[in-house]
């Protein structure tokens, strides 16, 4: 889902850089207060693991593939702010070293994958609050993971649709094309997310019980829960 350079209009790309950077400030600030001894190794393994997983495209249908985004997976382990920071690290390295995702489009890609993943985390938190136990965790993770891919695709489609390169097609055409593929890719995202969580619950369940790095808004205090 990485937008390359040359697709987005410059003002829009700059705006998305500004929005993403602005949202990263509280994420880093909160992480600076909440990161403990046990967070660092887990966050490093997960972030590197997401980088590796993103290299492994899985085929879906009609000659198209998808790959894990991984933001919700990290969110389930470490909370939405940690997910945002981790995804940003992955996206910056991919753009700078691997030419995957544009330089000018980096702000947009951080928005579509890092910020959207942090938002999607709350789909997980809501479901987990309603459905207790392992069932709630897995259902929440699957749906939130799927949601993050679809929401990211919608964001990317709107960004592309607003840019002059795609103006001729109209936003509906690019939106429907993006949605068609990503509704399917999202299922893969959900399956991989649930598999990793199941494996962790069996081998190291303690890794899922670290305090979450999340905003501490009183009015939406879902992130703090385990």
């Amino acid at each position, binding site marked *: *889902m*990485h*937008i*390359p*350079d*040359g*697709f987005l209009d410059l003002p829009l790309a700059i705006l998305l850089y500004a929005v993403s950077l602005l949202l990263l400030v509280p994420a*880093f600030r909160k*992480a*600076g*207060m909440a*990161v*403990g*001894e046990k*967070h*660092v*190794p887990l*966050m*490093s*393994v997960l*972030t*590197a*693991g997401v*980088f*590796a997983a993103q*290299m*492994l*495209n*899985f085929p879906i249908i009609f*000659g*198209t*593939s*998808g*790959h894990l985004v991984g933001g919700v997976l990290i969110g389930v382990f470490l909370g939405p702010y940690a997910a945002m*920071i*981790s995804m940003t*690290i992955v996206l910056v*390295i*991919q*753009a*700078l*070293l*691997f*030419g*995957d995702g*544009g*330089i000018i489009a980096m702000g947009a890609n951080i928005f579509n994958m890092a910020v959207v993943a942090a938002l999607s985390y709350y789909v997980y938190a809501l479901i987990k609050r309603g459905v207790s136990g392992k069932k709630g965790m897995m259902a929440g993770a699957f749906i939130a993971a799927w949601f993050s891919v679809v929401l990211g*695709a919608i964001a990317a*489609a709107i960004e*592309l649709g607003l840019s002059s*390169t*795609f103006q001729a097609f109209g936003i509906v*055409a*690019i939106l429907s*094309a*993006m949605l*068609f*593929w*990503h509704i399917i*890719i999202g299922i893969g995202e959900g399956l991989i997310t649930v598999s990793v969580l199941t494996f962790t619950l069996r081998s190291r369940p303690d890794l899922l019980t670290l305090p979450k790095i999340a905003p501490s808004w009183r009015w939406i205090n879902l992130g703090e829960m385990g």
Partner: protein
Amino acid sequence: MERWVKLALALIALSLAVLIPFASMFPDGLERAVKTLGVEEAGSLLNAIFHDYAVGFIENSYLSTLIAGLVGFFAVFAITWTIGKALKHRKTKNETRGNIT
């Protein structure tokens, strides 16, 4: 470094080595959507050192992808570790300051 961290790194690196040949070469959802509309991808702004997850001078495409991937994997690990440690350091400093005042 804890034992589980080393094990996890080894497991992921091994999975990468095993799964790279099976990774799909088909365009991803966004590439496909763009292609359907007939828009050509512009050349990249930056000549990234491992462009397209390959090491330029390695002929064998499996090795080329694997080495690029492993470099990226360990680089992301090290960078996250460094940032995490720096954040934790800030936390410790804040706590100490909080205790004194």
